[in-house]
């Protein structure tokens, strides 16, 4: 086994198990219409107050298997683009909720969400979303795929993006990585 230092890790994980994984609830001020409370500098971490539809999208995307159908998820909300963006940007847990939200946005609402998708391609804190979108380039319309690839190659994720873009089937997109 090349697995490193299992003892240290097991102790670390045991401390998790004993200490509980849930953080203490944070008393948050009421916000109108359930809008998210964004983090304020110098204060404890953000409190997320999703709307009903955002919570529904989050729950649907939380299912382990089989992966929920993006059209079904989008049908849960009158504002799929805004809600999927919200989940992609604010759902820390489970981790697959945010990456799946990004994928559903690209596949089902690419044009409407284009600005956000392009922003992720250049944002190291959204690297997971960016890598997920790079894996879907061949499923996207070529103009959108080109824009996303160009954004990734022009930003701080270029080193990770390049070998992935070099593997896509679309020759025009692939050429960007050469």
């Amino acid at each position: 086994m090349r697995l490193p230092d299992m003892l240290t890790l097991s102790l670390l994980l045991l401390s998790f198990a004993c200490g509980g994984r849930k953080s203490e609830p944070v008393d948050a001020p009421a916000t109108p219409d359930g809008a998210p409370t964004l983090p304020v500098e110098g204060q404890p971490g953000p409190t997320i107050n999703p709307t009903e539809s955002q919570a529904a999208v989050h729950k649907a995307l939380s299912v382990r298997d089989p992966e929920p159908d993006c059209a079904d998820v989008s049908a849960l909300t009158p504002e799929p683009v805004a809600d999927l963006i919200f989940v992609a940007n604010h759902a820390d847990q489970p981790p697959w909720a945010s990456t799946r939200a990004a994928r559903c946005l690209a596949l089902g609402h690419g044009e409407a969400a284009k600005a956000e998708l392009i922003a992720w391609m250049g944002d190291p804190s959204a690297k997971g979303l960016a890598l997920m979108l790079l894996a879907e380039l061949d499923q996207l319309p070529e103009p959108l795929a080109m824009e996303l690839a160009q954004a990734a190659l022009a930003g701080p994720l270029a080193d990770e993006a390049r070998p992935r873009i070099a593997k896509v089937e679309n020759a025009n997109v692939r050429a960007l990585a050469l």
Partner: protein
Amino acid sequence: MHRALFALPVLAALTACTGVGDKDGRPSKDSVVTEGPLTTLRGSILSNQSGRVLVPIELTGDEVSFMVTAKTDDTYISLEAILDENGDEVVNWKDWLNSKSTQSLTSAFYIYGYDSVVNWPVRSEDRSLSAGTWTARFTTVDEDYRYVEDVFVDYTVQTKTDHDLESGVVKVRLVWAEGLDTRNDLQEAVAGALVRWSEIWAAAGLTVEFTEVSSDLDPELNVDSVAPFPNDAVDYGGADDDVTLVIGETINDVRGLYGQSGGLPGTLVSTANAAVYVSWLTNAGRDGEFEEFEVLLLGETMAHEVGHYLGLFHPVEASYDYYDALDDTVECTSYSKCESQLGENLMFPYPLCSFTDCEPQGNLTVDQRAVMNLYTGAL
């Protein structure tokens, strides 16, 4: 548990025959290998004129479970029934796939690939084994569900004689997609996940023994129930007593039905569906980096997915109207009831999470533990 026996694998018998099963659907045995409590018999057979494949399962009376894996080259195959030594039906697909059925027992009944796998008994309440020749009756069908005759079928019958159903070892072979095995961040995340997984399964008396294999598999995994990928195409050192877990970057899953597990149950031998697939990327979240809580969830996901592979269904599906076939997992009918009654169960279809926290999810019921220990690969 017969761990010591694994150190001294014994080739108990080896017989060889030529040809395949004859036109009347009679089987041809190719080999029999016994290693400790596990015996693996390989053979071949042709489907008969009514598109049936009758795989013989010869039992001495000392076996506690068997697994039959049947596969074709390009024809759909599924289990129709299991018959005991007297020819009486022990289980029939019609009892589980009908308009009134709301429970799942085994995926062997489903027509979805060129292989079909059944483990028997599934549950402790199912008919136990008795001496004589039992039969697993499969059907071969085309895309329009018409029976197909003269289909060449490779089959493997595995039996176990490990009578300790309170504890056992499951061997898991971790196959890294190309390049991932050299990434320290993934190595550490998976190592932590294995600790959580082991902790969960320990409650079922099961020890997980891991081995790792590097591979040249594309990290963008394409998973297809009828494509010979990856185990049929490349031998990554798998034995007939281990479960394969492939770790890739993304999964393009066109199977749809089961998500990441190759079957409920999955097989111990090589077929197109002989693996569980996990994407590191979807488990690393928005920033693509593993935080500690994500390592825990990855461990729960692995324990859940390989739990499917050992034969566990979700106690309730996310539609809240379809269930496993176990007595001690309640049949709840709304998300609020299901989450409160089953939300901490390992096999619940989703973890209970706010946007920032998830509840630990590792409980197993007595009946679920029995299913896991009856899996022929739990030795």
